[in-house]
């Protein structure tokens, strides 16, 4: 046993040597300046993702973009954490609260419970829960704001457009998991399409549970292919990478952009998903980064109120399709968007 230890000793030494040779150059790593968030001068903002990555081309990325937007105007110090699993949400939030961050943003409905708990324990910190509808009967923390979006309205608007665009009379959607945030979009889409084109047939398919409902682009592509060959000519991809796979497939098919169209979700996917550009007429947007930036601005000047805050949704620019979509169609869609915004038009979506 002794000889074994002696033999292995050099390995340890090597390990320690390697570790040590960094010297002071590596020091605090890249940009990990020990900012003191407890002082009142530094405004610190921390963001906790829902387990997806910060560059997910969707929700987390948009929320982080909102933080970046507010960063300069507030002179804020901003950091994010990507928890690996659901168990880590509370510990991740605690890392920020322990360092006395001024605002903690949590993304996604899965992080709702730990956010509510943390808000109650840290009355001095402001919390913003993105896509978290608070039950205001039970949750009364004045330092917690839930930012939600009327996704059904965005779905309705793009559905209305889809109903006008379709030549085959069949429009489709490729969805992630069958959960309310996805259903809201889809049911809104269905209602919108039927409103503009009563004879339209709307088909939608949800990813099977288990596996990775929001990260299975190959499945999304396969389902899109199937819908296309069954005569669907407009496809709405709802569900992160799974939906992206569907949009990608439409973009690759023959007739993309002339007879076949696709619609993105959550953010303006013209920017996040360039490979879908050949067919991407527009995206149903939750204006997440705007919402986050607005709330952060309020937090900065101390006017942020607790409770639910309804963000805005909308449809993205038509980009290259601006001159391909008939003017009367554009006018009708604009009208619907306006009516949805001022409340004179209801989507009547019930989950």
């Amino acid at each position: 046993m002794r000889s074994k230890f002696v033999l292995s000793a050099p390995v340890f030494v090597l390990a320690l040597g390697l570790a040590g040779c960094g010297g002071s150059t590596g020091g605090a790593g890249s940009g990990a300046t020990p900012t003191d968030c407890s002082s009142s001068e530094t405004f610190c903002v921390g963001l906790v993702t829902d387990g997806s990555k910060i560059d997910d081309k969707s929700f987390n990325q948009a929320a982080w973009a909102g933080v970046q937007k507010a960063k300069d105007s507030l002179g804020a110090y901003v950091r994010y954490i990507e928890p690996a699993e659901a168990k880590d949400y509370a510990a991740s939030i605690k890392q920020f609260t322990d360092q006395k961050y001024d605002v903690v943003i949590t993304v996604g409905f899965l992080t709702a419970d730990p956010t509510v708990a943390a808000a109650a324990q840290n009355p001095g910190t402001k919390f913003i829960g993105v896509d978290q509808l608070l039950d205001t009967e039970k949750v009364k923390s004045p330092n917690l704001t839930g930012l939600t979006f009327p996704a059904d309205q965005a779905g309705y608007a793009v559905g209305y457009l889809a109903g006008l665009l379709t030549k085959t009379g069949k429009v489709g959607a490729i969805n992630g998991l069958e959960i309310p945030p996805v259903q809201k979009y889809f049911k809104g889409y269905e209602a919108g399409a039927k409103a503009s084109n009563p004879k339209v047939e709307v088909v939608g398919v949800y990813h099977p549970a288990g596996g990775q409902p929001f990260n299975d682009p190959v499945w999304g592509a396969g389902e899109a292919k199937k819908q296309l060959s069954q005569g669907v000519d407009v496809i709405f991809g709802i569900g992160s990478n799974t939906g992206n796979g569907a949009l990608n497939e439409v973009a690759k098919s023959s007739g993309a952009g002339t007879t076949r169209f696709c619609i993105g979700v959550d953010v303006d996917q013209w920017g996040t998903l360039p490979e879908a550009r050949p067919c991407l007429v527009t995206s149903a947007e939750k204006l997440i980064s705007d919402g986050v930036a607005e709330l952060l601005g309020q937090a900065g000047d101390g006017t942020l109120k607790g409770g639910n805050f309804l963000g805005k949704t909308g449809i993205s620019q038509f980009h290259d399709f601006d001159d391909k979509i008939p003017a009367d169609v554009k006018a009708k869609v604009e009208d619907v968007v306006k009516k949805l915004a001022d409340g004179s038009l209801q989507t009547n979506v019930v989950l």
Partner: protein
Amino acid sequence: MAGIVTWQFRHLLAIGTPLLILIAAYLFYFVDQTVATSMCANAWFFAVPLVLGALTGVIGERSGVVNIGIEGQMLTAAFASFFTAAATKSLVAGVAAGILAGVAMGAFLAWTTVTARMDQIIAGVAINIVATGITSFFYKSGAQLPVNMPQWNVPVLSKIPLIGETFFQTGPIALFALLIAPVLHFAMFRTRWGLRTRAIGEYPSAADTAGINVNRMRFVNVVLAGILAGAAGTYLSMEATSSFSRGMTAGRGFLALAIMIFGAWRPLRVVAAALFFGFANALASQLQGVVDIPQQFVTLLPYVLTLAVLAIAAGRVRAPAAEGVPFIKGEGQ
């Protein structure tokens, strides 16, 4: 006498089953042309990576090396092919990089298990973890393929109703999968290479006595099988979609293992098993919202069906006898 009857019965099954399936498919085609075609095409679209992945496993296991690292091989290949194609603006370079990545992972598996005699399951698990680690560690968003992979219509064959649209209006890798399965089947059961491969997987010491270099052959086979895993990964990120996302294999490497066993380690049966799975998957999504039962039950269909088929048919399929065991010359086996 009984032997002849069994022999006849088995061959009847081997020819009869595909024939029955074909007839059923065409019946369906005549009932609803669009739905049948689109579902079959969807089934094959889904089955391609499973076929390639499962064949990777078949070659390995037939030679006596268990490969549960297919998932990792595929993921690495998907990563390498996509980012190479994006960086070099060349599809060919991308495909080559994907296949090379599969081969490299295969070589790694071969080196650890055949040369270093490491436990094969551990090696496979390590490959999976390393692949997940590397691909998410080095992933950068924003890359894009220069152009899409071509879609080919094979002359004449693509005009056949149903079959043409299903198998012959596809991209190059899907066509490759379609071609490689029968070739491999023939090679495995009708050539010297196949005989030797099966020998080193069943009874390596006898093969050794017969003058076969067991470990060298295992090494080469596992490396070559990497080509198929590489193609499977490339299919995922370049042909089925044109993007890479973290963990995009979504368990297909494990499903491929199941299909390899379902297909009884025989390449053609592997294709059938993968198609069955693909079709069940297509059926599940087709029935969503049509039949009035919870959506989840419909999506469970392929998995339950597979279990049921296996339990009923209970083909007492046997794995190659010597798989999982490193060969050490002069130590029986």
